[in-house]
């Protein structure tokens, strides 16, 4: 894990951090940053007066603002985390790029649609970096899956099925009404991103949108195809009460066996022994096997700390993040295509 090796050096860079949006993701990221290096976050913006007043009276080491532009003038941050609802992302990132902020971390989904994302990449200068919080790429089981596949452990892949499910939404959601998009944009983007990253999914063959509670999609089914012509069947829901936390599941059938993976585990069954499975035909590894003494901060799922370390590592090494705005452009484009082709 390059993000973890020597992390102590690059978390202590001389940079001013600010957070825009003090909802649960803003609190999560600022918490991780400050646990990595105490006092890293210097400023925070939230349009809610209740949150601003409450937080400013509780937390003494951070300057709080209601207005983004005022914060930018007063604080001149080097790094800004944007963790507001998605409908505000484009205008906020636009303002940050305009104000010459060099490093932006943008929570997922990056924008409401692909044209908005393109408008931001067009605006970025070459010395500006925007990383998107698609943290599933940093979950070690999924990294392991990508490594096993790239080493040809499964032989030729013949079929992939996938889902991402949660119990997050059990009623109408006001924020999805603001964008006209629901579970696919908010949650399914993780799965679409993994499918593109791991399997090079290229084509949308069919998609179905289901409404359960409101005016937008609470469930989404899709048929996709990879660049190597492999069929991929997938579904997304944020309204399945059995799923206490979001779970992303991949099942990969290859000429040499079957691989199943989630954020929690990788299980492989092969027809022949393989060196990467310790010269066995079977492998089952769980979170406790992957996350031993790592990551150095444990707040919510470990993948959040790993993505933050990756961002800090990229800032320090002047390299492009794995989930840079440019690198997730295909993901956003496919989300648009899925909505465009959906039958209801």
């Amino acid at each position: 894990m390059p993000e973890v090796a020597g992390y102590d050096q690059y978390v202590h860079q001389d940079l001013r951090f600010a957070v825009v949006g003090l909802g649960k993701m803003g609190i999560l990221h600022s918490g991780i940053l400050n646990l990595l290096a105490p006092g890293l976050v210097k400023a925070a913006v939230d349009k809610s007066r209740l949150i601003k007043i409450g937080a400013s009276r509780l937390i003494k080491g951070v300057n709080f603002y209601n207005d983004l532009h005022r914060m930018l003038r007063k604080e001149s941050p080097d790094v800004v985390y944007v963790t507001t609802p998605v409908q505000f992302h484009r205008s906020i990132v636009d303002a940050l790029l305009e104000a010459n902020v060099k490093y932006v971390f943008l929570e997922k989904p990056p924008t409401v649609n692909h044209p908005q994302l393109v408008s931001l990449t067009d605006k970025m200068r070459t010395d500006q970096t925007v990383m998107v919080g698609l943290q599933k790429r940093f979950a070690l089981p999924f990294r392991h899956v990508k490594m096993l596949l790239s080493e040809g452990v499964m032989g030729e892949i013949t079929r992939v099925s996938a889902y991402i499910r949660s119990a997050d939404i059990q009623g109408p959601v006001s924020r999805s009404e603001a964008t006209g998009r629901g579970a696919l944009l908010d949650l399914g983007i993780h799965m679409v991103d993994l499918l593109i990253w791991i399997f090079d999914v290229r084509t949308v063959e069919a998609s179905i949108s289901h409404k359960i509670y409101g005016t937008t999609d609470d469930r989404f089914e899709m048929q996709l195809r990879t660049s190597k012509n492999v069929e991929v069947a997938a579904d997304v829901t944020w309204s399945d009460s059995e799923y206490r936390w979001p779970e992303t599941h991949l099942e990969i059938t290859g000429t040499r066996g079957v691989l199943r993976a989630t954020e929690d585990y990788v299980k492989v069954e092969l027809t022949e022994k393989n060196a990467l499975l310790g010269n066995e035909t079977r492998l089952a590894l769980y979170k406790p096997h992957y996350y031993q003494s790592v990551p150095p901060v444990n707040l919510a799922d470990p993948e959040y700390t790993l993505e933050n370390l990756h961002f800090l590592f990229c800032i320090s090494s002047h390299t492009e993040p794995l989930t840079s705005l440019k690198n997730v452009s295909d993901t956003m484009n496919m989300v648009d295509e899925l909505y465009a082709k959906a039958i209801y």
Partner: protein
Amino acid sequence: MVDELLLGDNSFIGVSHLAQDKAREEAKEAGLENKISVIESAIAGGATGFTFSTHESNLALLQYLHASRKDLLRQMQYYILVPHVQSYVRKANTAGTTSLLKQELRNALPRASFLRDTIISGLHLKPENFVAAFLEAELAPYLKILPKENVTAILLHEVITELVMAFDLPNLVTRLDGSLKKRGLSLGFETRNFSCLCEYVSRRDLRPEYLMTPFNPLGYQMARSKEAVEEAVDYLGKTAKIIAINILASGAIDITQAVEYIGQFKDTIYAVTSSSTKPSRICRNFQTLGLGLVNGWSSRAK
């Protein structure tokens, strides 16, 4: 030395840090009757207490014990984790954080003591007072039914503990501690960042009586690292009572490996926890933990 063996509630409320599909299976098994059997078996195996979060199904279980099985209720010491963060995360997902705050204020207002505390905290503009009032309101139904002398400690849920450290909130800790002390209760911390907590309580000169943290030979959920946590346990164990949780690394190791590992620290670990939906397994686990870790276990078991 290890003094207490505590039944944990993860299996009762559908939590597994191994894999979600295991948690879903356990949640299906964990009906009220099954939970009672587990508690009986745990006590038979040597468990001395129950540590649980303020999840609504735990309240239902304890209400049942209060109404029908006071014998069981009186046989355990209680270590309560508060608040139940996941339920608030879910509400925030639907309504947003600001709406959640307003909604929780509205929900809590009808409670007389909460109303009084909220007005006072509003007048003084001290969010610490509001947080204390909010936690008290969440604890109230549990404190109402549990025998007062059996409630040993109130532990701040890990997410709150980590945020206390991240945003340096010693005033909040002092306020919460003061509020619990008035009720004769002791404040503790649960954390997955134990070495950070060690640095923090030393820097801020805080002296919590109870600390709860994952502790297993794999170093799972032990941040910043297994070695750093071991050092911190050695250091803080001299002054605080440390409760080791997730001792089986979520099921990745067996109970004998856990006993062997914790045995190296048994002079600094105060309590260990175990959780299961299987009555026979929980009894066996506590017997093994008792034999391996508790001084004078044979005479205590008799």
